[in-house]
Structure formats: structure tokens, C-alpha cells
């Protein structure tokens, strides 16, 4: 699959934003590390919402006909893409109510219930983003429950690193934030490792024989029938060399999990705390972006069987 920059930016940014606000609610509810004050909570919440909004806006850049984008909310009952849009839109007012109830010191029940609903809606939205890819039977590497799990884990990992940076800046006790980050990143790393292991041979998949129905002999493509590329080759023809993919997987693990993990240790040991937290956030997010790029680059659409691939 052709990795579209706007979609990579969208999934990474909105994932981090949704992760940040859910964990912000948890930090607020349990007063982790002494608890953020009012202004800090609002700043964090607004930052999360900005990430989500910029992400959603950038996702419209890959549309060829964005004037009809408003119609994307209409097929809620069947389409995961539509569901994601609807959930993201439902999330916005809930998050605003939560932030407003923090600003105006609203009664605790309102603050907690709106915060809880915000966190749940954020979870559902990221899940829907993952399901957009996971529901496609045409791409074996995506058609697995590991995909929404990865989207959630990585979104929350980026969010937890952002929250840790917030705790450092706010001067809170960072221990609970380090523990939270470490736990979420460990889960994300394990899930990603399982995914990378699994897609090396993802089980039964269509072959050139089932694609042509000529199942009793070897089949090979002689000619694609087009002079230059087509929409199909541009969209689905992208291929990444195995070696390059392996190298990028190392980059994903180093930037996405190992560097932020080391930085957690630095923060814990009180060594140049602020720099360490910033490095953790940047490495985590760049790692997530590389992971997303690779997620697209490694996906092999079955239409490639009509362009010469023997199996997908």
C-alpha cells in the first residue's frame, strides 16, 4: 500500500491526543503524583484536543473531493470510517464539558462522569481507526485483531509520554507517571512484536491461482495490459524490500520503545529530567510515525495478484 503522509500524521497525532486525554482523566481522578492543578489540566486537555483536531483536519487532505466530506457521517451502521468520524465528533463536546467543568469547578459528579465518558469515547475512536484497516479482507497483513490493539497501545503509549512530560513540567511526583508509561509501552512493544512475528507468514491468503481460477497449473503474468502505471499500481503497487523493512522494524523498537524506556530511567533518577522527558516524547512519536509508515508499506493488497505477484 502507498503510505499517504496525511493519513500517517492523522493516525499518529490523533492517537496521541486521544491517549493523552484519557490518561489525563485517570491522573486527575486518582490525583497521581499529587495531582495537576486546574490550569495544568486545561492546558493538557487543550493540547490533546488540538492533536485530535489537527489530525482529523489532515485526514481530509487525502480526500480527492473534500467538499463531500460531511457525508462521511452518514453510514454509521456499516462503515468503520464513518463510525470513526461520528465517534470523534461525539468526543469533542464531551471533552469540552470535561474541561469546562474543571475551569468552573463544577460539581465532582459532572467532572468525573464527563471525564470518564471522554476517556471511553477516546478509546472507542482509536479502536474504530484500527478497525478501518482490520476489517479489510483484501489485505492479509491488516485483517487481524492485532491491528486495533496496536493502534490503541501505541496511541496510549504516545499519550503517556506526553503526560509524563506534563508531570515533569508541572513539578509533580513523576513516579506514578513513569510506572504508567513503562507499563503501557511494555504492552505496546509486546503487541508490536507479536504483529511483526505474525505477518512474516500470515496464514492462508489468496494466490495467483485462486485470483485467476486457474488452479491446476503454475500461472504467471505475461502482461499487465497497461502502458504505464494505473490508479491501482499507484495505490497498491508500493513495495518495500525485506531488508529495508527489517531495518525499519529495528528503528521502530529503538525509537518507539527503547529510547523512551531509557529516558524513563533518567527521569526516575532525576538526571536532567526535562530534557529526558522531551527526548522520550519526540522519540516515541517519531517511532510511532515510522511504525505507521511501515504498517502501510508492508501491507500487500490482493489486487497485486493481477499485477504479477504470486501470493499476497
Amino acid at each position, binding site marked *: 500500500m502507498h503510505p499517504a503522509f496525511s493519513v500517517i500524521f492523522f493516525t499518529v497525532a490523533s492517537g496521541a491526543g486521544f491517549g493523552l486525554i484519557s490518561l489525563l482523566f485517570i491522573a486527575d481522578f486518582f490525583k497521581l503524583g499529587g495531582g495537576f492543578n486546574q490550569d495544568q489540566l486545561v492546558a493538557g486537555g487543550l493540547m490533546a484536543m488540538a492533536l485530535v483536531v489537527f489530525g482529523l483536519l489532515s485526514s481530509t487532505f487525502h480526500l480527492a473531493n*473534500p467538499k463531500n466530506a460531511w457525508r462521511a457521517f452518514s453510514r454509521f451502521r456499516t462503515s468503520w470510517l464513518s463510525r470513526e468520524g461520528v465517534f470523534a465528533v461525539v468526543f469533542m463536546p464531551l471533552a469540552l464539558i470535561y474541561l469546562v467543568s474543571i475551569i468552573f469547578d463544577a460539581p465532582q459528579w459532572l467532572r468525573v462522569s464527563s471525564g470518564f465518558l471522554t476517556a471511553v469515547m477516546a478509546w472507542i475512536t482509536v479502536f474504530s481507526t484500527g478497525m478501518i484497516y482490520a476489517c479489510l479482507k483484501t489485505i492479509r497483513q491488516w485483517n487481524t485483531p492485532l491491528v486495533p490493539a496496536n493502534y490503541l497501545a501505541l496511541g496510549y503509549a504516545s499519550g503517556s509520554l506526553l503526560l509524563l512530560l506534563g508531570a515533569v513540567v508541572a513539578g509533580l511526583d513523576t513516579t506514578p507517571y513513569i510506572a504508567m508509561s513503562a507499563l503501557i509501552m511494555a504492552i505496546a512493544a509486546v503487541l508490536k512484536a507479536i504483529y511483526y512475528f505474525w505477518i512474516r507468514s500470515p496464514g492462508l491468503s489468496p494466490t495467483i491461482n485462486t485470483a485467476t481460477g486457474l488452479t491446476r*497449473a503454475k500461472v504467471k503474468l505475461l502482461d499487465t495490459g497497461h502502458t504505464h502505471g494505473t490508479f491501482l499500481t499507484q495505490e497498491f503497487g508500493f513495495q518495500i524490500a525485506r531488508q529495508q523493512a527489517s531495518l525499519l522494524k529495528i528503528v521502530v523498537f529503538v525509537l518507539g520503545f527503547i529510547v523512551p524506556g531509557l529516558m524513563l530511567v533518567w527521569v526516575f533518577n532525576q538526571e536532567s529530567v526535562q530534557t529526558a522527558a522531551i527526548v522520550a516524547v519526540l522519540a516515541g512519536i517519531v517511532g510511532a510515525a515510522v511504525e505507521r509508515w511501515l504498517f502501510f508499506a508492508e501491507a500487500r493488497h490482493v489486487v497485486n495478484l493481477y499485477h504479477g505477484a504470486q501470493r499476497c
Partner: protein
Amino acid sequence: MRLGLVIDLDVCVGCHACAIACKEWNASGTIGPLSDYQPYGAEPSGVWFNRIRHYEMDEYPNNKTINFPMSCMHCEDADCVTVCPTGASYKRAEDGIVLIDQDKCMGCNYCSWACPYGARELDRSSGTMKKCTLCVDRIYDQNLPVEERQPSCVLTCPAHARMFGDFDDPDSAVSRTVRERGGYPLMPELNYNPTNQYLPPRRKPVIPVDTQPKGGLKESIKQFANKLVRR
């Protein structure tokens, strides 16, 4: 009704006439235009609803070239319709034709991801997805003579490798042919239940070819001479 095509892989000669006829009709039909990018340039490309690939089956001397036309299969369980977020893609209840409402499409490409057959192509000039309509603006046209109320590709095929008809009717020509010749759908394991069916190439006697040198003194002298001459 369940309208669709039968494509005879035994007969298709790979002339691309069906693709040309399709382009000709649909470029000015209800879904047109079908944009071309750099048609006379170095990298000619464009929107087509019908593409013909050429395969080789088996190995010499049992090999055979199979010309393989493909357009929308008008699947019974069309995921392209399910995944469409805007409702632009729809499958008609009355005849099973899958269509795209050009006024609703936002060009997100998601339906093309869901289609295993590569039937959908984005038109860059209109920013909308386009696909085979089964010539819906032709097969119901009362102004045409009855025998011409068929998709363009079927009418034009010089080898009669394409048939159009109703698969719900067990006595229609398409249903009968599929039954008799063992017609099959493509990639059935994905469970899209495509309507279009393909008829397999017939078995043909292998033409014997002499591939081994005959041997003997005369032959080895000849081969030796050939080697000398080549040098």
C-alpha cells in the same frame, strides 16, 4: 434479477476491444468523463473500467496463454459498498448492479481498498471514484433495439467471449453456460460472492514437438559444424 457477465477464457483473444468499447461508451455516459492523464505523453495513464491482463498457464510444452478481461464483478456481498462512509456506493436491489453516486463520493479511496478485483479507479479530474456500471444507461434504454440493450463490451467482442444476462434465472443463457462449462468466480475464498463468472479454457491436445537431438554420427558432425560456424 442478478445481472452480470460471463467471460469465456477459452475464446478470448486478448484484443482489448471490450476495454476500448467500454471507454468509448462510458466516457460520454452517465458516469463520464473517464479522464486520461498524458494520453500522448511519456507516461500515459487514465481511468478504465475494464482491463485485460495476459497470463501464461503451465509450462512448455503444455503452456497456454490466457487473456484475462476484468471489470466489476457486481458482488453479492460487496464490501466496497459496506465500507463506503458517505453512502455514495450502493448496490441496486432490483438487479444487483453496484454503482457510485458521483454527487456523494468524497474520493477517500476506501472502497478501492476493499475491492479485491481492482474494479474501482479514482478519477483525478473529478476527485471521485468510478467503476463499471454494467452499462446501466444502455441496457434499459427503450430507444435502442432489443438486441442492443447489452453492455458495450459484450456487444463489441469479436470473439463472442463475453455474455450478459440474469444469473437468478436458471434457464438464462448465462446460467446454462456456467452450468455446462463449469464456470467459476474469482477468489471465492474472500466470500465476496462475485456475480461475474469465468469459463475455464478447454483441454486441447498437446502438439508434439521434437525437442531432443536425434543422435547418431551424422547429427554430432552437424552439431560440431554448427559450433564452429557460430564461433
